[in-house]
Each structure stands twice: as C-alpha cells, then as structure tokens.
C-alpha cells in the first residue's frame, strides 16, 4: 500500500499513503474535478486530516473469516420485476424525449449534444 516518494511528514505508520500534489491531481482527474493550483495545498491538508480520522479503522481488529460483503438490506428474497414495459402514465414509466431535452444542457434534434467524442 505504501507509496514511493519523499514524505513531508514522516509517519510511524508505514502503510499510510503519502498525500501529495500528484496524488490529489491523479484522484481529481479520476473524478473529473478541476483543481486549480491554489486549491492544491488546501486539498492535500484536508485529505491528510481526514485520513488521520479514518485511520481509526486500522485499530479495529477484524476477526478471521469475517464476512463484509453483506448487503445493508436484510431482505432475503431477490426483488425483481416482471418483464413488462410501462406506459408514460405509470409511476416510473417512460417519458417524452422533451422531458430529457428540457433538463439537458445541450439538446438538439432529439439528441444530447457533446463535443466530439474521441475513441
């Protein structure tokens, strides 16, 4: 889990990743968030602090064979729906394309419009 590279604040925990500008930029890009140069120091500091808080997770001992993939829902039956198509008047039914056009930032000739998609 350890990241290579120099650490500003050497930490006793070797597993703790070093939060730096590169990591913030990489993560921001994954999330398609624009970050200006001014914002970087604040975000690095924030992530450092929040990871201090989150580190309490490490102090919890996880028992052997512990299952953590359970769903919050305690429903025991699968909730599925019948293969039927709904009508626009049904709750949750299909909508007139205009409804989507009206809320889309750029909608022309019945389609969503974007800058050219590459690849």
């Amino acid at each position, binding site marked *: 889990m350890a990241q290579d590279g120099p650490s500003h604040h050497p930490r006793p925990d070797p597993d703790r990743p070093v939060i730096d500008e590169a990591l913030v930029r990489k993560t921001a890009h*994954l999330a*398609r968030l624009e970050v200006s140069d001014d914002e970087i120091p604040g975000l690095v500091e924030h992530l450092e602090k929040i990871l201090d808080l989150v580190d309490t997770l490490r102090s919890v001992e996880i028992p052997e064979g512990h299952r953590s*993939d359970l*769903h*919050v*829902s305690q*429903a*025991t*039956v*699968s*909730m*599925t*729906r*019948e*293969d*039927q*198509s*709904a009508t626009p008047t*049904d709750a*949750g*039914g*299909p*909508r007139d*394309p205009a409804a*989507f056009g009206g*809320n889309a930032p750029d909608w*022309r*000739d*019945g*389609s*969503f*419009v*974007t*800058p*050219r*998609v*590459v*690849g």
Partner: protein
Amino acid sequence: MSGKTTSWKTVVGLEIHAQMSTRSKMFCACVRSTGTTPNQHLCPVCTGWPGALPVINQAAVRRAIRAAISLDCGVQRESRFDRKNYFYPDLPKGYQISQFYRPYALGGAIQFERDDGSPGVLPLVRIHMEEDAGKSVHAEDGTSRIDLNRCSSPLLEIVTEPLQMSGIEAARCVRSTRELLRWIGVCDGDMEKGNLRADVNVSIHREGDTVLGTRTELKNLNSFVSIERSVEVESARQAVVLEAGGMIRQETRLWDQDLEQTEEMRGKEDSPDYRYFPDPDLPVLIIEASDIDRERDSLPESIGARRTRYIDQLKIDARDAESILARREFGDFFDQLLAAGLSPASASNWFRGEVLKHLNDREESIEEYPLTAASIVEVVEAVEGDRISVAKGREILQAALDQGCSPANILAQTGEQVSDEAALIGWVQQVVDANPDAATKIRAGDSKPLGFLMGQVMKASSGQAHPRRVQEILQRLIQHD
C-alpha cells in the same frame, strides 16, 4: 502485411457480449429497442436521472440462467451487481452496472469444431449480467450526438479462458455460441445491429514456451470475418514486433475492417481505474435450485441433438437441415409438419420451398405466419394422393395467405383432379383440333409448342386435368394422327 511465422503459437481469449431478447430493459420498464429514432425509449432510470433506482428484470435473469445451463456453467445461488465507474457520454450515470466481484455463473465451456474437424472445447471463466451503454454518433457540425435508446439493455458477457487457436476457430466459437443463444431464445444474434459482438484477446508465444505472451485486446468485433481476420492480423503484427526484438504492450487496439489492420487507440487512459464496488441500490440476487430446474425443464432439445436427429435419423440432406435449424422456431414448425403426417423428405421440401419462401416474400417472422402446420399438411396430402397437382397445391397455400383464409376452404372449392381417360382424351382432342399448326410442328420434331398445348388443355379443363396424364395423351394423339 507479414506472413505467418510457424514458430509462433496464437492464443485467443474471447469476451462475447449478447443482448438478451427481453421485452423491457435490464433495470427499467422502457422498451428494449434498437429503433432508428434516437432517445425514444427513455425513463429516469436508464437516463440516470437523480432519484431513479434500478430494478432487476426477471426475464433477463431467466434467460441468463438458460444460457448458463446450456453452456454447462455452475449457476451461483448468490450473485451481486457492482458499479464500474468511468465517464463517457453514452453512460449517463457515470457508471455501468455489471457483475464484477460475484458473477451469477462460473465455469462452463463452448463446444466448437477444430480446423482438422475434431471437436474443440473452449473453457469459460464466467458469465455475468450487465447493462449496455448508449451510442454516440459524430455529427457533421463537429459535435457528437448521444442516443440512449440502447442504454441499459440487458447484456450477457461470456468470458472464456485463453486457448491456442486460429482466427477461424475463434470465429467458430463465436458462431457456435451465437447459434446456441438464438436456439434457446436468449439473444437474437443480430450482429449487424450489435446485438452480439465480441472482444478478442490475442497473444502469441513460441512453440514450447509455457508462459503466455502479453495480450492485446480488440474490442467490439461484430462479424465473423472481423474476428477471424483480426486474430490473424494481430498475431502476425505481434510476431513482427517480437522478431524485431520489440515488446508487446498490454493495450486495447482498434480493428479496421477495411484496411485489415489493428491500430493503437488514442485518447484513452493508460490503465483505467474503474473503482468497482457493490451497487448499494441492488440487493443480492438469489437464484434458487428450483429456478434453475424450471429453466432446465423448459429448454428445447439441444441444437446438437436436433441436428443429429434430422441428418442421421431422418436422412435429411445436411445443407437442407441447416436451413431448417437456422432458428429453433423453424425446426419446431418442421417437427409439426412431421407430426401431422408428412415424410421427412416431403416436410423438408414443403418447408423450405413454400414456408420459408412465404416468410421471405411477406417479410414476416415464423411467429407471425398465419398458416398452421396441419393445414399445410392437408394440402400436401391432397397433392401426394394425386387429387391435385403440385402447382395447384402451391397455388392454394398462396391463395390462403393472400385471402387470409384457411387452405382447407380453398381446397374444398377446388375440384378434384380428373384422371378419367375418356374425359382427358376429349379435352386433348379438342385442343389439338383447334391448333393444327402446333401439332404439325411437334410431329416435325419441334417440341416447343407442347407446353402451349398443355396450357390450353389445363385451361379447357379449368385446371382439373391431371397434368402428367395429359402430357402422355397429348404425345400419343399427336404421334398417331
């Protein structure tokens, strides 16, 4: 293009994406459609509107189970849906719902024919369910237009192990999978529409090496020829690179069918980080043993067994059998013709010659075909019992379709074929007397007017004269005159 290097072995892994032929989409009640008008089948769920939640389509799960049974997979009692996170304009939620960590089916195999004719087995890693993305189309004004009709259509992704094989064999694996999925009613297999497509992973290694080479991936191949050729071309490209001392990078490449070459993709991230995690909006999917049994019990006779029955037992010509087996519904209709009393040969002739022709002419599916097997058999029996001519039989079927009535009604109004010698001679004599020139020509050795005279006799008899007998009598009378 470089030729094949014999010392290299090509290994291929497949990911086959099949759109399941449900009425509605995977997670919402919108019509699953590939209609041409964009954005006609949308709701808040498949458009990723705030507040909308996915609900699993039962029919998609049932079809998925059928596919898993038919491919000998182990159906998992518990499976889950995960979110695959990435940004793309045809993906309105910013994630695709797919079974990543816990797919519903593990193992299994695709049966195919090796190049030397021996049976081949391509082992499967898994099959999982997922939703399809929409489509983006380049517009003339330099923008892209996004159509979400296809978005959230139910897909199966069949993931195979890597296996040493040729491009033709890889294409055959996809062909046999397509045939099977169509046969069991899971996917219509329409590759032109992209309802069945494959990603191909290709690597090469030297004969005798135990470690596989680095693979490249070719995405969205939607024809057998593109699968076959891309494997051949890409493995040859890799050989050239390796022989020149180069390295193969693990990457996704584009297949250009026109140029027959693979290209690097631009504008893609080096290694996408999809941040898969369980979708909290969907509970664990439970598939009980009884669900599996129900699907197994309702599966049709397998296409392999049916083929053996037609060719080996019923002695139907192999090529004819394939056209009957092109769709399970064809085979079922054919079986109904047999059950109603036709011999295999005559069922094959009438099915291929008439029924398939009608479907083609009328551009309708066999589900829409108005004639029943029993009603066709009635007509065929009249033909085979010499009561009407073959041409008359065909005419009756066509008339029944045109008039939208039962062939039996028309058959009842049709007079029986006349074979009575005296009556036939009467008609023939009448026609020969009225056309002395024709008779002269025939006697001089020109057989052309024979057809004309035949037609005149049939007309005189209102179509009821037995054609073969008329022909015999005609020739006899003319020669003796």
